[in-house]
C-alpha cells in the first residue's frame, strides 16, 4: 500500500512560540451575533504583534453566533494565528470530523478541543444537546484523522496534521472533581493533547499547587494559565457565585472596590498575577471579554 501523502501546513506562530520555550500569550475573541466580520477585525487589530495566537470561541455559553471556523478563516487571512475552538455540543462525529478537515483545508492547524456548555445555559435552551463525542474522544478523533483514517476506519486521501490543545480546571472544588481533572488531563495527553489552556485563575497559590501536582504526575505538556481581565468588583462577585471553578479572592475584590480607575486596577491585578505564576507555566491565555484594548498594557508589564 502506497504511503498516504502527508500534507503539511507550516507550523503556526503559536506552535513555534510554545515549542521555542518563550513565554507564550494567547487571547480569545467571541464571534458577533450577526454577520459583520469587521467587529472581530477591530478587536484583533488591537492584538496584532502583541500576542502569539487568538482563540475563537465556538458558540460560547451555548449562544447562537457567527461560527468559530469562519472567524478563524478570516483571522488567518488578516495575518493572525487563530486557534479553532471545537465543542462537542452541536455536532455529531460526522460533522466534527468534517469541520476539522475543513479547518485544515483552510490552513488552520491549531485546535482547542472542548466538551462545551450544556444547551440549557444559552439562548436556545430548547436545542438538542448532541455530545456524540466527549473532549477526550474528540482528541482521539483528531489523532485518527492524522493517521489518515476516519472514525469508521475508512482511509482519507491525505493526512492532516494539527496542533492540538485541551482545557483543564485547576480550581475544581471537591476531591472527586479535582482528582478527575487530573485523570482526564492524563487521558487527554494520551489521546494527543500538545498544550493546555486552563479555566481562569485568580489565586496564584491554587495554580502553583496544581502545577506541582501535574509535575508529580509526570504530565509534561505546556500549560497556559487562564487569566480573565477583571472589570469590576461586581463581575468578581458574579463569577464567584455563578462560574464553576473560578474563585476571586477577597483581597482582589477589595482592591477593585477601593478604586475609581477600574481599568488601571484591572491591568495591575492581571499583570501582578501573571508575574507571580510565570515561573510555573509556559504562558498565559488572557480572556479580555471586550477589554481587548487593555491587553497590550498587561503584556507590557510582564517581566
Amino acid at each position, binding site marked *: 500500500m502506497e504511503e498516504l501523502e502527508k500534507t503539511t501546513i507550516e507550523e503556526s506562530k503559536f506552535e513555534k512560540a510554545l515549542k521555542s520555550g518563550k513565554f507564550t500569550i494567547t487571547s480569545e475573541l467571541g464571534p458577533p451575533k450577526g454577520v459583520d466580520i469587521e467587529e472581530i477585525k477591530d478587536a484583533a487589530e488591537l492584538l496584532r504583534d502583541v500576542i502569539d495566537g487568538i482563540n475563537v470561541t465556538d458558540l460560547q455559553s451555548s449562544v447562537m453566533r457567527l461560527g468559530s471556523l469562519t472567524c478563524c478563516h478570516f483571522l488567518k487571512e488578516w495575518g493572525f494565528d487563530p486557534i479553532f475552538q471545537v465543542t462537542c455540543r452541536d455536532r455529531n462525529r460526522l460533522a466534527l470530523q468534517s469541520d476539522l478537515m475543513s479547518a485544515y483545508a483552510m490552513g488552520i492547524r491549531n485546535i482547542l478541543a472542548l466538551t462545551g456548555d450544556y444547551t440549557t445555559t444559552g439562548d436556545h435552551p430548547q436545542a438538542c*444537546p448532541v455530545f456524540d*463525542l466527549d473532549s477526550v*474522544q474528540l482528541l482521539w478523533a483528531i489523532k485518527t484523522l492524522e493517521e489518515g483514517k476516519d472514525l469508521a476506519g475508512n482511509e482519507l486521501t491525505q493526512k492532516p496534521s494539527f496542533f492540538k490543545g485541551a482545557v483543564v480546571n485547576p480550581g475544581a472544588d*471537591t476531591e*472527586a472533581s479535582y*482528582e*478527575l481533572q487530573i*485523570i482526564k488531563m492524563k487521558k487527554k495527553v494520551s489521546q494527543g493533547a500538545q498544550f493546555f489552556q486552563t*479555566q481562569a485563575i485568580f489565586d496564584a497559590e491554587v495554580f502553583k499547587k496544581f502545577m506541582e501536582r501535574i509535575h508529580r504526575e509526570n504530565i509534561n505538556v505546556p500549560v497556559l494559565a487562564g487569566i480573565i481581565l477583571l472589570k469590576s468588583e461586581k463581575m468578581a462577585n458574579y463569577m464567584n457565585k455563578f462560574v*464553576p471553578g473560578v474563585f476571586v479572592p477577597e483581597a482582589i475584590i477589595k482592591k477593585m472596590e477601593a478604586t475609581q480607575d477600574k481599568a488601571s486596577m484591572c491591568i495591575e491585578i492581571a499583570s501582578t498575577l501573571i508575574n507571580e505564576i510565570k515561573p510555573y507555566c509556559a504562558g498565559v491565555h488572557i480572556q479580555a471579554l471586550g477589554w481587548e484594548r487593555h491587553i497590550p498594557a498587561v503584556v507590557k508589564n510582564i517581566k
Partner: protein
Amino acid sequence: MILTEFKPIEEILLKLKDEKKIFIIGCCGCPEGANTGGRKVLADMKEQLEKEGKVVTGILEIDFLCQKALIRSRIKPRTDEINNADSVLIFSCGIGVQSSAAVLNKICHPALNTTTFGGITGMWQGTERCDTCGNCILDCTGGICPYSSCPKKLENGPCAGQSKGKCETDPEKDCAWELIYKNLKKIDRLDILDQFIPPRDYSKILPPAKLRKTKLWALDEEEMI
C-alpha cells in the same frame, strides 16, 4: 419487559482478564423472558468461565434485580462467596447492574446489553435508570450510568461545569462523575478510570424491525396469528 442481549463472550472475557474469582448473579425477571437469563444460562456461563481457568465462587438468582432492598436480603446468606470473588458478573438490564453495584462493594460487570423497553411490566426499580443503549459500560463507571446520569453523556470524566459536586444543569442534581469517583474510591478501584472509553455505538440503539414484531416487543402480530 426490558429486553437484553448477550454481550459477546470475547468482550466478557476481556472485562474479566485481570480477575480470577467470579460470582454470578442473574435476575429472574425480564432476562428469563428474553432468553438471556435463567438457571441454564447462568450454569453455561459458569462452565465457560471455568474452561478459561476462572473460579466461580457461586451463582445467585434474584427475582427483581432492580430492587436494592431485595438484593440486600438475598445476598446476606451468600456474603462469603461474594466477598471471596474478585468481581461479580451480572445477568440483568442496566438497572439491575446499577442497583447491584450500589449494594455490593465489588465491580459489577454487565454480561448483557440492554436494548429496549419492550414494555414496562415487571419493573420494580429504585433511582437507577437505564438508557437501553446496547453499549453497557457500567463496570467502567462504578455502576453509575454516564448516559442516563450525565446530561452530556460524558464517558471519560466530568466537564468543568460541575460546582461543589453538583451538575451544571441543575444545582440540586449530583454530578454523575462525583458519584462515579466516590463509588470506585469506596471499593479501592480508581485505577479503572485510567482507561480510555471510545464513543458509544449509536447504531445499537434502534431495536431491529424483526424484534418489533415479536411478542417480546409488541403483542400485535404474533398473538393475532
